[in-house]
């Protein structure tokens, strides 16, 4: 029993409710948001150190012992995700102050921001599959509000599509839960894992597993990503950063959790599907990133590539690959938030999102330019940045598992990622300044936030040796679900 586990959910929830009553007091809203963000960051640090010392923490809601009632489980994987998400969301919050605009701030932007965080943290920490659905919905409903907030024509059109895709996938989620409940008679994830291992996974359970895979793949943008490039391009840069850094990662987390814990009985079948989907995602995402000439689309396709890469790490399934998937997932949350923030700053500086109308920004914004260059190297996985250790581990795991072709696709997609980002760097920062009027904007505070995130990316890369014990503790639980089951059902 550890009440600390519910705090990351409770704090943003209370903050969001308080902010609702402070509609006109924007400055106060900002202060409360920052305070709540810092508090959450500190608590997440405490949670991670406690789990590092004492192992997996559980909290039984209302004192109902599992498998009855809802249980919250904090293993290292979930705690690290909560920690990274709270750091990233704090950065995006600070960037919002200067970029989101007074209108949106007055119309409950910060409220929805915190409700979204409730859903994200809740999805990471819950140990009950239906509760996971509920937290997904909390997160999605906030994201509907955030994506449509502002009500431009583009936003309204893209929100309709985004909403429809997510309603259909949520419907399938409930259907999958219904089938699973009929087949296994429980909803507690640890208990499910135990029962499915007893019954032997095959036949109907594999069908249910594929149904879950479809549901989470739709949310994560794994292969079924046709909705993502358009929808993520509609809202302003801060919201894009929030979505790119957190939403797809929650889908990925759900895939990793369900397929390492619940449907771990038939890895040849499930990992085979995931591997093919991952390969297709990496290829198609990389092609998309190379093909386009407007910054939002290039960045959106980059999100897709990394989803494929983490899923490839999961499908390889060796301890190295799982460690790598965890490391890369954490790196990618930081990296993608940074990428969208820098992208937003570039668009603000140039006054357009079309690359062919940009040029010469390096003269006016040198720090912004070199940050973007460093980010390109980080996302491609070049040392000393944080992309490198994750990529090495995943590729090594893939080669150990005998997946040579998939590993090559992974490496090739990294090259195309580098090319697409360097293309942005070259066209936006080098060359001649276009003759058109250049907007005079002050990007100092935004660049400072981006520099802060970049420092985190570099620290995570340089301190990989120091981060590694935490990562491998997370990977161990993914590799042997028995640890998770024992922690939840022991009492």
């Amino acid at each position, binding site marked *: 029993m550890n009440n600390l586990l519910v705090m990351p959910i409770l704090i943003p929830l209370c903050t969001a409710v308080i902010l609702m009553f402070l509609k006109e007091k924007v400055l106060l809203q900002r202060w409360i948001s920052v305070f709540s963000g810092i508090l959450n960051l500190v608590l997440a640090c405490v949670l991670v150190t406690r789990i590092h010392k004492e192992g997996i923490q559980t909290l039984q809601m209302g004192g109902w012992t599992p498998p009855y009632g809802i249980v919250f489980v904090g293993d290292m994987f979930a705690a690290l995700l909560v920690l990274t998400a709270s750091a990233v969301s704090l950065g995006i919050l600070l960037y919002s102050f200067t970029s989101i605009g007074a209108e949106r701030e007055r119309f409950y932007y910060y409220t929805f921001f915190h409700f979204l965080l409730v859903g994200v943290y809740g999805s990471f920490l819950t140990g009950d599959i239906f509760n996971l659905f509920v937290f997904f*919905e909390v997160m999605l409903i906030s994201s509907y509000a955030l994506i449509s907030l502002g009500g431009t024509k583009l936003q309204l059109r893209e929100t309709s599509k985004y909403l429809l895709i997510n309603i259909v996938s949520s419907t399938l989620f*409930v259907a999958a*839960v*219904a*089938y699973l*409940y009929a087949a296994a008679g429980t909803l507690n994830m640890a208990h499910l894992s135990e029962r499915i291992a007893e019954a032997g996974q095959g036949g109907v359970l594999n069908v249910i597993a594929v149904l879950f895979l479809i549901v989470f793949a739709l949310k994560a943008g794994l292969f079924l990503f046709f909705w993502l490039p358009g929808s993520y391009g509609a809202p302003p840069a801060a919201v894009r950063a929030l979505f790119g850094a957190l939403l797809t990662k929650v889908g990925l987390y759900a895939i990793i959790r369900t397929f390492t814990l619940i449907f771990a009985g038939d890895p040849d079948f499930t990992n085979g599907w995931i591997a093919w989907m991952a390969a297709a995602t990496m290829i198609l995402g990389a092609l998309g990133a190379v093909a386009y000439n407007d910054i939002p689309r290039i960045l959106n396709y980059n999100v897709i590539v990394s989803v494929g890469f983490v899923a490839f790490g999961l499908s390889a399934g060796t301890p190295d690959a799982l460690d790598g998937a965890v490391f890369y997932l954490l790196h990618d949350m930081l990296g993608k938030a940074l990428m969208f923030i820098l992208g937003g700053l570039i668009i603000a500086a140039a006054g357009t999102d079309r690359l062919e109308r940009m040029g010469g920004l390096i003269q006016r914004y040198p720090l912004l330019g070199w940050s973007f260059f460093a980010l390109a190297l980080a996302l491609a996985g070049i040392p000393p940045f944080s992309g490198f250790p994750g990529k090495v581990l995943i590729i090594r795991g893939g080669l150990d598992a005998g997946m040579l072709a998939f590993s090559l696709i992974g490496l090739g997609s990294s090259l195309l990622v580098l090319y697409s980002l360097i293309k942005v760097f070259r066209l936006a920062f080098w060359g001649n300044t276009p003759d058109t009027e250049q907007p005079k904007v002050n990007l100092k505070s935004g660049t400072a936030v981006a520099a802060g995130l970049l420092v985190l990316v570099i620290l995570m890369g340089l301190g990989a040796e120091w981060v590694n014990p935490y990562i491998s503790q997370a990977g161990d639980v993914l590799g042997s679900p028995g640890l998770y089951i024992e922690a939840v059902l022991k009492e």
Partner: protein
Amino acid sequence: MEWMMAVAVGVLFTVGVYLILSKTLLRIVLGTSLLTHGVHLLLLTMAGLKKGAAPVLGGKADAYVDPLPQALILTSIVISFGVTAFFFVLAYRAYQAHGTDEMDNVREEEQ
């Protein structure tokens, strides 16, 4: 009894999918609503239809009904209620902004 429920679920899914594939936004909203109703019935059926007394403490019966699916459905209904309400408002705003609720025409307005 189960086969009747299965047919009902099937019909709801069919109608829901058909409506979602149509062009007007209003029909799409109704389609999603029917689809979620279908899935609620599915949840109720998959957990086993009523075979015992209501699961209330103090009642004396040989068998009790599993109360969990009903709690799940209730949660899911509330969520779908909220989402449908949001979708209706969004559809109305989109209609105001674009002057049409045909999805095809909305797409043409790009650029």
